[in-house]
């Protein structure tokens, strides 16, 4: 396989593991849990770029929508994570971000994804929880996602670079937007 294919395979494995952990561990915690899937999609998007980010977001979102016991609107999570993947893919290298900047970016994108999914569910389908239930949970979950992202985003970036054979370049470039 080419280095690029190794990178994409590594990114896919990271997202798949994140989806499984989200369903089997985080979704069963007795408090608002971080969205590991969102953090993983952001990590893949920042490491692999604007094309791989939305693809990772779509695949992860579709898995969240159709794997049991999910019974929400199919496509809602996929759409939210495609947007997250696209926006995160505009940050070409998160190593130029300070930890607080990275936390803010990940938490903001997690908030965007969660709010988007809830709005779509509220507008388009019956049985969505009210804002009184969702907003506090969304706020806590987004902050926790930002904190988790401090480890997950650089971790996925390092794994993807190692898979592509580019780990040796240890310079710290500034974040490039656009």
């Amino acid at each position, binding site marked *: 396989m080419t280095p690029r294919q190794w990178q994409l395979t590594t990114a896919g494995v990271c997202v798949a593991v994140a989806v499984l952990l989200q369903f*089997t561990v985080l979704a069963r*915690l007795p408090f608002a849990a971080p969205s590991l899937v969102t953090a993983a999609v952001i990590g893949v998007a920042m490491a692999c770029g604007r094309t791989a980010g939305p693809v990772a977001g779509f695949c992860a979102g579709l898995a969240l929508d159709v*794997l*049991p016991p999910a019974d929400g609107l199919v496509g809602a999570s996929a759409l939210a994570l495609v947007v997250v993947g696209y926006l995160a893919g505009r940050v070409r290298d998160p190593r130029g971000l300070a930890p607080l900047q990275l936390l803010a970016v990940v938490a903001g994108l997690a908030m965007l994804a969660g709010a988007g999914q809830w709005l779509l569910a509220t507008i388009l389908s019956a049985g969505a929880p009210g804002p009184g*239930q969702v907003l506090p949970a969304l706020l806590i979950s987004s902050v926790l996602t930002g904190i988790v992202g401090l480890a997950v985003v650089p971790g996925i970036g390092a794994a993807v670079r190692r898979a592509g054979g580019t780990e040796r370049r240890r310079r710290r470039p500034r974040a490039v937007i656009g």
Partner: protein
Amino acid sequence: MAAVLAAVSLSLMLLDLRGGPTDALRAVGAVAGGPVQTAADSVFGPLRTAGFRRADTEQLQQRVAELEEANRRLALRGDALAEQVDDQGAAAAAEQRAADMAQAAVAARVVAGDPALGAAAVTLDAGAADGIVPDAPVLVAGGLVGRVATVSGATSSVLLLTDPASAVAVRVGDHAALVRGTGNPHAALLDHVDPLADLGTGQKVTTLGSDDGWPYPPGLTVGSVRTVSGGLGDLAREITVEPAVTTDTVDHVIVLRPPPGVTP
């Protein structure tokens, strides 16, 4: 690429709203994803309980010692009772009752939860192959947990009482009402209740019971009245119910099978 994927996602949502081929996607997800979740739970599950295990080790060891002692006493009592039973007919009837009870329910383990915010649903590691049917009530020792929403071959999805899409007919005192989930794991809403019903906090809430006792047999514990806001006769009175079972920490459950003669 992002625009194309966004368009595909939107199309899927529209198809899902029309009740179209997205059901096939869900079925594929259940058939392929359920067993993967079961396997993943056996790998990742200890991560979820590791903190609790360390904290509770001493308490659990003490509990194990108590249970071993209780078990020893019960075994002695059982031996004494067995010596007294000389009626073969009674023994056969007891064995038949035990066999009927084993046929009436399926034990299952929770292997995954719904990651959507406010949603309350879980995946069980037992499905149609184990005799689970849609709408079957799901219980633990403390009371009702929810009902089976969908079933695949090896797994099934359970809609918990606290999910916003859940509604169960209940009895509070002499009054019938409806318990609706709100997404809060510690409070559900008591709806369609008589405004003149004199209800107080702590009052027990049980299932009203369905026709033929299926899917909900009468008398299963649902929870207790948590708060009552507004006075007697107030049409806007809001009553919340605290579920008897903390559904977000349930690990093992019992799923009832339909009684003989009832077609689900």
